[in-house]
């Protein structure tokens, strides 16, 4: 489909969209951040160089979650006090999309969800507090102040103008979790579960020198 392909307004390279819903992408060649406006791509900035990057996941990695195939089509990189973590943007075989977070090789898959209860105010957050969403009691475990570092690939929203982000992470007694992203107004809710690396059966991962590939 022609609408899936476009030309980078900065360097003229072909920009290919894997997902029709993508709002933002990054030119693979010149790292320009491109935002879709109707039929045209607008150059809105330039992505920073990726930090020292040791995640085994990359754009193009494929895997399976809950019996459904996915492909990694983009990511957001955040910096926090222990380094960086990635939120990989997943496109599923049924055209739904979600996120694979990879923080120091701890993996979790989550999906955007509406709030069923109003989230606690950003300044009212307190470790140990319990919030109920979608009939799941969630305990607040970590509040993370992070900095937006860079993006890569296709994203479902415009993300280039962000700087500072606040996240509240909630856990349960059965391996589920929730993240409230306070960098948007109103905040966003992501619900998901922690996953073992092996259970995702990922293919097309990065290779690490001196390590057997998985």
């Amino acid at each position, binding site marked *: 489909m022609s609408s899936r392909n476009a030309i980078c307004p900065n360097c003229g390279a072909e920009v290919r969209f894997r997902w029709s819903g993508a709002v933002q992408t990054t030119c693979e060649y010149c790292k320009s951040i491109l935002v879709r406006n109707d039929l045209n791509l607008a150059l809105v900035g330039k992505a920073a160089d990726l*930090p*020292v*990057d*040791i995640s*085994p996941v*990359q754009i193009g990695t494929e895997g399976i979650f809950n019996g459904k195939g996915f492909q990694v089509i983009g990511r957001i990189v955040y910096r926090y*006090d*222990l*380094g*960086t973590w990635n939120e990989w943007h997943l496109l599923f075989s049924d055209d739904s999309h979600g996120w694979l977070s990879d923080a*120091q*090789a*701890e993996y*979790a898959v989550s999906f955007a969800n509406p709030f069923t209860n109003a989230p606690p105010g950003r300044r009212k957050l307190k*470790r140990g507090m319990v919030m109920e969403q979608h009939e799941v009691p969630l*305990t607040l*475990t*970590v509040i993370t102040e992070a900095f937006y570092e860079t993006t890569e690939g296709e994203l479902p929203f415009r993300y280039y103008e962000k700087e500072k982000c606040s996240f509240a992470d909630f*856990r*349960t*007694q*059965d*391996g589920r*979790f929730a993240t409230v992203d306070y960098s948007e107004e109103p905040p966003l809710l992501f619900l998901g579960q*922690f996953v073992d*690396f*092996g259970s995702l059966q990922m293919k*097309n*991962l*990065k*290779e*690490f*020198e*001196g*390590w*057997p590939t*998985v």
Partner: protein
Amino acid sequence: MNPAGPRKGFVPKAKALNCPNCGSQIELRALGAAASVICRYCSSTIDASHPQLRVIAQWQAAMTVEPVIPLGSRGKLRGVLWEAIGFQQRGITVDGTNYFWREYVLWNPYHGFRYLSEYNNHWNFVTPLRTLPAATTVNALPGMQLGKERYRHFQTARAYTWFVIGEFPWMVQVGEAVDAADYVAPPKMLSAETTDNEVTWSESEYLTGAEIWQAFGLKTPCPPPAGVFANQPSPYAGRVAAMWRSYGLVCVGLMALMIFFAVTAQRQKALDQKFVVNAGQATGEKSFVTEVFPLDGKDGNVEVSVNADVANRWVFLSMALINEETGQAYDFGQEVSYYSGRDSDGDWSEGSRSEEVLLPGIPGGRYYLRVEPETDASLSGPIPVRIQVVRGVPYYLRYLLGMLLVLIPPVWVSIRSAAFEAKRWGESDYGGGSSGSEDGE
């Protein structure tokens, strides 16, 4: 530099970097994943999360500990290859005594971080938990529940980091303190480490030194573990209940055999003869033979019971069961004595007027008894004696003895198991109190 740029999808080994404090070479094994690295020469904590290393803290190490698993060595545990990249010695102080244990950071680029802990050569493979355990009680004592497993509280203490080298996924420093609480369900353990900011939970699984030595191919001798560790599986776990179950089964079997042979016993009355022993005849011709009687069956036991109406005297019968056809003789003897009286403690008696002799394995045939009585020559008066011979009586004693004998193993294992649990819990916050109950499998 590679003019073609970095190869896509390939992560090269990190180059060695120089410590920004002392300049010595630092090998980074998990660059980008580790948050901090500790210089092995100057003990500076260096922020490894930035491409430009910077010193976070300097500390003159109060001690130096050599890890038994050299940093950089790799071993396969739980089916995954891990590289030891960090090492720390931590300690708690109980009643003025320092207890130290050691922890290794393990890393795999795909699977992330795991840990090994070691105390007195008891090892644990530690996995960070991503679910929250729920507080509960175990036998009315504080505990934690994770999934279906219930863990009993073992110990809570403030743990300090005394020595550290290598890479860590957090900003580790000598002197760092956490409140550490352990909950055990051997061979597993849940641990909570609480700082001002957060509580991190992990799940440990007990490993022996031998498993570590084999996994990492260590060449040094593997020292034996000392004492019993908090989550060390008891060698008796599950065996106690199993042995008592087996004991019950053996007893049921023995009872069944006993009942079967009691019901089916022949109980053939072969002889019932009365005679009188005269004391005056203590010497001279007094032996006699009974009438001939048949013993049926091919093979079986014979019970000879002797009843003598004695009072404060004894009679001894030398007897022989003789096969009329073959002349085969089975010699035996039986004393019957009965004494009674009265003293300052009241009435007393000793002995019995009836005794039984059991002769096993007597072939069938025609038999008679030769009897030679003896009694106290100084006392006079006739003694009426009755001899009864019964073929094929049931045994009881051997079954009861059997039940007693097979009682020994379960009792022994129960004692050993209780002693093992007492050693385990003696090291806990509940030491000196109750020993663990043996309901775990």
